[in-house]
Structure formats: structure tokens, C-alpha cells
């Protein structure tokens, strides 16, 4: 039974990629039947967050799941309503509307006597719901296999448990144990495992073009920011004496690099913030770029299709081939990025808790 599910999931990845993307994209085309196809707009719409979960469009009919909007306005207080009130962003509701212009394009703004004010917006957007969906998958998955472990602790792993155990052991042995000295690694394992599986599952769900996949969660800068922030906090709070000494008075560095101008300490200090910042940008950029490339190949079909129907069909063959290739590549990237983020976090924790510097300290 489990095997069938897995097979179904794989089929969705491989077949669903173009079949459903094509479905979506023809809708974009028909939506703007008279208007020209704008690939830039089309791509940005697909990789951005949104207040409703668009599933498909046929003819002029949009099928999407409305999501709750939660707002706090300084002028009118709390507002809770479904995003369907905006009629796909076309109409205002209760003084609020989805802005179509910069600088708040795509966000909800409040019209207060002609002035556009951005309220505090904690709406359950497509990305939030997608995050919850992935977190629920992770929770159910791992609690269920935890029960299997508890039930037969001594027996060899089977099925799903076996598949996940390989990844858990990979994270534990090749990422965490390899980066953090001694028994200290156990303290960081829960976070790093959760981090790895969260990134991985969202990367993979992002590649599934049909509902409930397709949201660009790990390509959202707020999501990667939170992950990097947690890594930053853990690194900073678990830094030992040697770690801080290394930052503010690095041993083995000539004195004139520290005084009167504290060049090295300054660089080291900035490094504390640069490291998580780079983590945040790397994941965001990699995943977003992957989505943009896949969607770009797709847009080619409609760009050529607008010129000539047969050109569109001709290009579609090449485009689909490239899209499949890119999706497979993105599958690899999904693993690599989860690995890299987790590995670097583990290395930062390892650096913060490393002990052998004491030895050099005495020498000094």
C-alpha cells in the first residue's frame, strides 16, 4: 500500500510536471486572450506568495481555494475575512485591496482617504498553508516511524522506516557527527534533522506542479530567513570561550591587524552575521532560480505560440524536454540545498563549540 503511494508520488513528479503546467499555462493564455503573453509577469506570479491558492482556470473561470486574510489596521483594527472577497484581486473589500503597483505590488493595502497604507498582515497565505502542509507531513511521518521504533526496537528497519532511516543516519553521521565534536552533537541533532527534512520536503513539494504542491516555500526569503535566524541564534548562544576569543582576539594573528585598527576582529564579528545571511540567500536564490528557469522554458511555448500556433507546438516539444531535464536537475538541487544548509549550520555549531583552541590559548 505504501509502495503504491510512493509510486503515485513519483508519477506525479514525472508526468505531472508538464501535463499540469501546460494546463495552468493555457489558462494564462486564455485569460489574456486579447492581451499579449507576458512571461515576466507569469513567472513572478508563479513564484510569489498569494492570498488564494490558484488551482486551475478553464475559459474565464478561475478555480482557486480562498485563504483567510488576517489584518491589523491602525485605523480600523482587526479584520478577518476570506480572500475570495477580493474576487481574485480584482475588487476592493472593506477599504482593502490587493495593490497592483509598486512599491507594494501584490500586497494588501488599506485606502485611508486616498493614502495607501500597508496594514500588519498575518494572513494565512499560500506559502503559510504550504508550510503547514509540509510540517504536518513531517510530523505524521516521523511520529509514525518513531512508534515503529518503539514497538520493535531490536528488529531490522522495514519499508518507510528503512527509507527514512538511511537519510536520518546520513544526516547524523555524515553531516552532524562529522562537523560537531564528540557527544555535543546530540544536542543539535533534533534541530538539524528537522531543518534538513523541512527544506527537503518543501524543495520537493515545490517541484510538484499540482495542488497541494507548487508553492515556492523554500524560495521565499522570509522562510529561509527564519531558518537562518534559528541557526544564527543557536550558534551565538552555544558559542564557548574559545569561539568568542577567536572572534575578538584571534590567536596567531599579528598584533598590528588588531590594534589600533581592529581589522580582523571587525571581519570576524561581521562574519557572525554574514554566515547566516549567506545561508538565507543561498537557499532562496537556488530554489527561486530553479523555478524561474523551469517556468522560463515553459513561457517559450506561449511566446512562440503567440507568434504562430505551429511554432508554439514545435517549440513545445523542445521546451517540455528542457523542462523535464530542469525538473530532474531541480530534484538533485532539492537534495543538495537541504544538505548544504544543514551541513553549514552543523559546521557553524561545531565551530562555536570546538574545544581544541584551549590548547593554543595556553601556548599564547
Amino acid at each position: 500500500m505504501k509502495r503504491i503511494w510512493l509510486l503515485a508520488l513519483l508519477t506525479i513528479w514525472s508526468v505531472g510536471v508538464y501535463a499540469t503546467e501546460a494546463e495552468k499555462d493555457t489558462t494564462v493564455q486564455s485569460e489574456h486572450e486579447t492581451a499579449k503573453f507576458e512571461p515576466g509577469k507569469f513567472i513572478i506570479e508563479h513564484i510569489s506568495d498569494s492570498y488564494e491558492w490558484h488551482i486551475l482556470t478553464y475559459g474565464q473561470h478561475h478555480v482557486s481555494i480562498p485563504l483567510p486574510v488576517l489584518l491589523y489596521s491602525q485605523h480600523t483594527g482587526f479584520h478577518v475575512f476570506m480572500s475570495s472577497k477580493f474576487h481574485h484581486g480584482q475588487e476592493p473589500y472593506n477599504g482593502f485591496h490587493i495593490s497592483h503597483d509598486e512599491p507594494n505590488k501584490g500586497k494588501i493595502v488599506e485606502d485611508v482617504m486616498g493614502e495607501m497604507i500597508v496594514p500588519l498582515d498575518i494572513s494565512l497565505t499560500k506559502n503559510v498553508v504550504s508550510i503547514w502542509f509540509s510540517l504536518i507531513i513531517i510530523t505524521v511521518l516521523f511520529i509514525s516511524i518513531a512508534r515503529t521504533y518503539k514497538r520493535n526496537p531490536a528488529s531490522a528497519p522495514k519499508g518507510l522506516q528503512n527509507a527514512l532511516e538511511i537519510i536520518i543516519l546520513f544526516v547524523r553521521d555524515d553531516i552532524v557527527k562529522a562537523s560537531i565534536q564528540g557527544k555535543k552533537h546530540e544536542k543539535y541533532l533534533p534541530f538539524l534533522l528537522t531543518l534538513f527534512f523541512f527544506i527537503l520536503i518543501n524543495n520537493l513539494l515545490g517541484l510538484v506542479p499540482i495542488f497541494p504542491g507548487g508553492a515556492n516555500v523554500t524560495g521565499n526569503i522570509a522562510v529561509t530567513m527564519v531558518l537562518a535566524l534559528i541557526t544564527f541564534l543557536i550558534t551565538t548562544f552555544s558559542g564557548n570561550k574559545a569561539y568568542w576569543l577567536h572572534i575578538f582576539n584571534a590567536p596567531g594573528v599579528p598584533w598590528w591587524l588588531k590594534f589600533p585598527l581592529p581589522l580582523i576582529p571587525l571581519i570576524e564579528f561581521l562574519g557572525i552575521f554574514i554566515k547566516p545571511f549567506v545561508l538565507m540567500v543561498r537557499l532562496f536564490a537556488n530554489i527561486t532560480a530553479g523555478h524561474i528557469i523551469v517556468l522560463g522554458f515553459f513561457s517559450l511555448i506561449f511566446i512562440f505560440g503567440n507568434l504562430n500556433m505551429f511554432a508554439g507546438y514545435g517549440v513545445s516539444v523542445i521546451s517540455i524536454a528542457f523542462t523535464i531535464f530542469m525538473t530532474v536537475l531541480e530534484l538533485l538541487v532539492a537534495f543538495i540545498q537541504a544538505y548544504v544548509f544543514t551541513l553549514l549550520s552543523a559546521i557553524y555549531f561545531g565551530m562555536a563549540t570546538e574545544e581544541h583552541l584551549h590548547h593554543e590559548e595556553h601556548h599564547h
Partner: protein
Amino acid sequence: MELVTPGIGILFWMLLSFSVVLFILGKFAWKPILNSLKERENSIDEALSSAQKAKEEMSKIKSENEVILAEAAAQRDKMLKEAKDIKEQIIRDAKELATGEATKLIENAKVEIENQKLAALAEIKNVVASLSVDIAEKVIGRELENKSQQMAYIEDSLKKINLNK
């Protein structure tokens, strides 16, 4: 700009939900999973090391057995050799004894035979002497009578003597 500007809402929900899930997973998933992985690894390690130990024990016992066997074989060989020696000794002794006894017996027999012979000879001498005397008496007594009778008498006497003795 929208892409690279983190939204407050998603920041808030992400931080909240990720933390909650981290807590739940840490308590109800990672802890039991990691613990049982560790336990399993420990038990495998133990099993391997005890198997190794048993193997060493076995080889030790085997070599001890070999030593014992070799000792036993040596003991057996020694005992067999001793027994053989003893046997030979006994046979040799017996032979010596027997030879000695036989010689002694033969010696005795010889002495006895010699004695008997001497005694017989002495008796023969006596008998012959007395016979000679007797015969001489009778010969002298009948001399004057018939010569042929005389001869017959002698012969007759001799015959009697032979028969008597």
C-alpha cells in the same frame, strides 16, 4: 522587490509553526528514533564483540586441547615404551633364570649320572671279583673230572650268573 522583501506575516507564521513542530518532533519523534538507533547500534556492537570474544575463547580452548592431546600422546608413548622395556626385562630375566636353572639341573644330573656310574662300576667290579672267585673255586674243585663236563659246568655257571644279575 517583492521577492526579496520578507513578509511579516510569513515570518511570523514560519517562526511559530516551525518552532512548534521542532518541539513536537524533538520530543516525540527524534528522541525515540535516535535513542533506538543508538541502542540498536550498541547491541550490534556488543554482539559483534562478544562473538569475537567467543571466537578467541574457542581458539584458546582449541589450542589448550591440542596441548593436552599432545601431552596425553606423549604420556601414552612413554608408558608403552616403559611397558615394553619391562616386558623385555622380564623376558630376559626369565630366560637367564631358566638357563641358570637348566644348567644347574643338567649339572646335577651329570653329577648324579657320574655317581651312579661309579657306583655301578664298583658293584660290577665287586660282582666280577666274587664271581671270579666262585668260578675259580668251582673250576679248581672239578679239575680232575671230565674235561668236557668241566667246560659245561663253567658255561652253565656263567649262564646262571647272567640270569641272576
